[in-house]
């Protein structure tokens, strides 16, 4: 069990109220709060260990290199991956683009197809559409069921002709909260086409559920530091080193080359080949501290906390008048993001009223416009949970929604 009261004290931002009220942060799915240990690690780098990496031979530079590579190693350990497969990027979006440019554009040809789903975040969708357009590839999308799960039967049909050579799927939906059976999906894609590459967007999974990439058996996995309690400006593509070996560099310049003559260059080893220029050093160090923080809590304990709390939020929201919750019914099938709509009140107005009461939720289409169309909504309200949330966060949410309903109620049309 997590000691939430003690944990809350670890997050400096949570100490600041809004207009005399406690800050109720229900938006970790957009960006998690940063614990003190992460700030301390970054402060030590800037305050006492500042230098570039992979260059100087003096002790300060060696320490900076060790800190940067330590961040990579920590992330690899956290996800059960080989550090040689961890490319540090700016965020998950860049990680998805790296696969799209380095692999899809390089290796897929007209006649090949890409499998995706209707619930992808734009980050795991647009780079592949763009690649499909450039290379003349066909796009196929796995539909969802009524309760917001991938329709695996439909997926099986979509891959049956053996032309799907690349699949991009999210591990956990940022809107519906659905935890997708990615291992099963990867298996069915490869059953139809053994050499198909399966890329997974883990931005919403890695912060909330234990992830063991060796067991998931996918080819590449994108994460973003700021949702993992780490700093902004860092993310990673965590891939099989062999996939990286076959990929074209996406950004070129310093750091990523082994040798340069005026006639040409030879590329550095993976993963450095994909990290052109001075990398985000403090951010890598901060990310290492962040995953260490989550490991110390234990990802099983984090998941258990969110399952228990999520069930309380789900039933509290379902029981309140006028609220429709989207996505799977049961916490067993879902992560910590809960999207809902409130009858007669636009999500923007809900968000403004809640914000005024110190309750932070996300409103809008959550960068998932195709999914919004599937849901028949233009926008939703999303409350998302993390380690610092507890049952006492539900009441302010429900009270704020009730206040918004009272404020924006339109007169009933008399019959």
């Amino acid at each position: 069990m997590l000691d939430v009261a003690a944990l809350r004290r670890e997050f400096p931002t949570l100490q600041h109220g809004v207009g005399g009220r406690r800050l109720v942060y229900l938006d970790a799915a957009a960006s998690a709060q940063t614990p003190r240990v992460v700030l301390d690690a970054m402060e030590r780098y800037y305050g006492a260990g500042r230098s570039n990496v992979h260059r100087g031979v003096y002790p300060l530079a060696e320490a900076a290199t060790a800190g940067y590579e330590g961040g990579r190693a920590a992330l690899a350990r956290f996800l059960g991956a080989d550090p040689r497969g961890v490319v540090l990027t700016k965020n998950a979006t860049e990680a998805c683009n790296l696969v799209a440019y380095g692999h899809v554009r390089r290796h897929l040809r007209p006649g090949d197809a890409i499998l995706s789903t209707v619930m992808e975040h734009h980050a795991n969708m647009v780079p592949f559409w763009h690649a499909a357009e450039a290379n003349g590839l066909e796009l196929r999308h796995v539909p969802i069921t009524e309760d917001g799960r991938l329709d695996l039967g439909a997926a099986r049909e979509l891959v049956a002709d053996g032309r799907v050579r690349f699949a991009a799927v999210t591990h956990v939906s940022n809107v519906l909260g659905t935890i997708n059976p990615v291992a099963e999906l990867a298996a069915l894609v490869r059953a139809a086409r053994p050499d198909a590459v399966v890329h997974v967007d883990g931005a919403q999974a890695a912060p909330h559920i234990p992830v063991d990439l060796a067991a998931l058996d996918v080819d590449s996995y994108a994460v973003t530091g700021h949702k993992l309690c780490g700093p902004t400006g860092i993310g990673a593509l965590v891939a099989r080193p062999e996939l990286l070996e076959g990929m074209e560099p996406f950004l070129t310049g310093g750091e990523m080359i082994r040798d340069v003559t005026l006639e040409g260059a030879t590329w550095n080893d993976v993963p450095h080949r994909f990290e052109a220029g001075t990398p985000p050093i403090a951010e890598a160090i901060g990310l290492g501290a962040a995953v260490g923080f989550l490991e110390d809590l234990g990802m099983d304990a984090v998941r258990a906390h969110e399952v228990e709390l999520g069930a309380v939020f789900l039933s509290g929201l379902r029981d309140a008048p006028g609220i429709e919750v989207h996505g799977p019914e049961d916490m067993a099938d879902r992560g910590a993001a809960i999207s809902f709509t409130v009858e007669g009140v636009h999500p923007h107005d809900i968000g403004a009223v809640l914000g005024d009461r110190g309750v932070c939720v996300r409103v809008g289409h959550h960068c998932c416009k195709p999914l919004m169309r599937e849901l028949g909504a233009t926008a939703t309200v999303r409350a998302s949970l993390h380690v610092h949330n507890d049952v006492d966060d539900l009441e302010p949410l429900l009270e704020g929604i009730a206040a918004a309903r009272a404020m924006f109620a339109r007169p009933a049309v008399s019959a």
Partner: protein
Amino acid sequence: MSELEQLYQELILDHYRSPRNRAPGLRGEDAHVHHSNPLCGDEMDLRVRIRDGRLDGVAFDGEGCSISQASASAMTEAVTGRPVEDVLGLVEEFRRMMHGEDPARDDDLSDALAFRGVARFPVRVKCALLGWMALRDAIETFQRGAGTHAVTHDDGGDDDDR
């Protein structure tokens, strides 16, 4: 008044709860535009009827937050019956007000003046502007001799860079 009460004044809520000139059609329409604001998911259909150089009728319909709906409602009352050039001037007046400038035509803006406080909520400015930008586009669509036009706003809402 709290910040929130300033944003949601009673006059604004009244336009939201009982919108004026909100209808799915307009008899004798001369131009019809569809505007959307992908950031919020707001959608608006706006229709105008122009007779002898005057805005003879305007109707809006769609889905959006209270600010976008109420602003469009207040706008329809302020602009109906005016010469179209005057309407375009008033649109510009409202747009400037949303950028924090003091309006010169308080009386002409009428209820739309209540949206002045929205300027302090940058994310909501585009909501308040949606109807006004649609109206400007509808008049210009008519002036070009076209009947329909669809626009997606993905910037701050005022499409200065059309």
